[in-house]
């Protein structure tokens, strides 16, 4: 179980972004997070994945602090896949940075064998996003923070990506925090939804 306990965070002391925010994400749970632009959704996602450290409060996984080395059990998936890959690496090397997905897994996520020897610049945003999602699904991973991962994709690609992720998550009991502006998408994917505004979380 991933727990955030009374997190407070600010980039400048005069402008607090998150105040006493607590949330719990259980294994296998899909939790939706919405909020206006600049409300702090991505910041909360990065705090949960350990990319940022809160000024007060803490993030605990099964009663312990997040590990500082090794594959992180909480993985953050960013909105722009172009920034999430090394432009000098080929897709095969990017995909296998932490683990080697099976052919079946590649197929489920629509990752074509012909992409392996290509550079990321020659893939579309949607294709690259699928590579990034699959890369983050290492066996040690138990929770995902999906930060607007389908915003830039066309509806069909969105559907394929979420279906593949849903299957994988159900199989492995992954907990997923879906961050999005799209309330229809959140309603479809997540039984529980939260809304972030003025630094506080409210049920939606």
């Amino acid at each position: 179980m991933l727990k955030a306990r009374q997190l407070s965070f600010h980039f400048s002391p005069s402008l607090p972004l998150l105040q006493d925010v607590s949330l719990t994400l259980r294994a296998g749970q899909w939790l939706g997070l919405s909020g206006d632009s600049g409300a702090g959704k991505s910041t909360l996602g990065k705090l949960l994945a350990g990319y940022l450290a809160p000024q007060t409060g803490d993030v605990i996984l099964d009663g312990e602090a997040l590990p500082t080395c090794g594959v992180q059990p909480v993985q953050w998936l960013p909105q722009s896949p172009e920034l999430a890959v090394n432009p000098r690496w080929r897709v095969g090397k990017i995909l296998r940075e932490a683990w080697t997905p099976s052919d079946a897994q590649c197929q489920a996520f629509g990752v074509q064998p012909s992409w392996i020897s290509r550079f990321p610049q020659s893939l579309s945003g949607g294709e690259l996003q699928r590579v990034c999602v699959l890369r983050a699904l290492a066996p040690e991973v138990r929770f995902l923070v999906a930060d607007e991962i389908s915003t830039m994709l066309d509806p069909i690609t969105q559907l394929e990506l979420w279906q593949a992720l849903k299957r994988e998550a159900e199989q492995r009991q992954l907990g997923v925090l879906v961050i999005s502006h799209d309330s229809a998408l959140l309603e479809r994917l997540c039984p529980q939804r939260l809304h972030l505004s003025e630094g506080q979380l409210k049920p939606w």
Partner: protein
Amino acid sequence: MRQTQPRLRAAFSLGVTALLVIGLIASQWLLGDSPQQMQFNARLAPPGVDHWLGTDALGRELWARTLAGLALSFWVGCLAALLSTLIALSLAAIATLSARLDALVSLLIDTLLSVPHLILLMLIAFALGGGTQAVIIAVAVTHWPSLARVLRAELWQLRQAPYVRISRALGKSRWFVLHGHLLPHLIPHCLVGALLLFPHAILHEAALTFLGFGLSPSQPAIGVLLADAMRYLSGGYWWLGVFPGLGLLLMVLGFKRLSSHLRRAL
């Protein structure tokens, strides 16, 4: 077209510079010991058919001495620029390891940048007892700060890049991130940085030798030739200073042009 033109230009100036450098190095075999050969019947002869660029006070051919001086400067410049780049890269890499080390490296960079180059160069060369080795070391330890500052800033920016953060989150070690993600990105910067350092290095080598702290007066270095020329300038023997100075200027300008073309292309 806009993409290819800088590359074409860079390839062209790389070709020209490489040819000149090969010519310069090859000329050293053909010259043999002619830069040292004295002709007492042709002392201080002006440039002409018999003596292309004139001779010096001991009747030594100036064209041979200038070529030998440029070749010597080239090697000193190469080694010093290479060493300098290595120092800059290592310190920039060390600076990324912790905030405290970064502060220390920044302090070192600022301190070295605030001291005039030439004074530091003279002190180090003098402390090391002069000679080729001392000049190379002195130039190398004084020329890295500007490149180190660029590399450090580049590394700090890269470390914040999402793919680098994700690599760490995927369990990759700092060492893997450094040599897998960060260093390959820095190689073009290092190449251009070394090329930009090179003209500085040979100019300072010549200055140091001119002032008497560098290479030994028996070597036909450009600095030695220019220092010799000073003594005869008032006598109207202009060729002693003009030709070695012109050779040095051409070499410096050639490498500056090459590095600016490469910077635009890479």
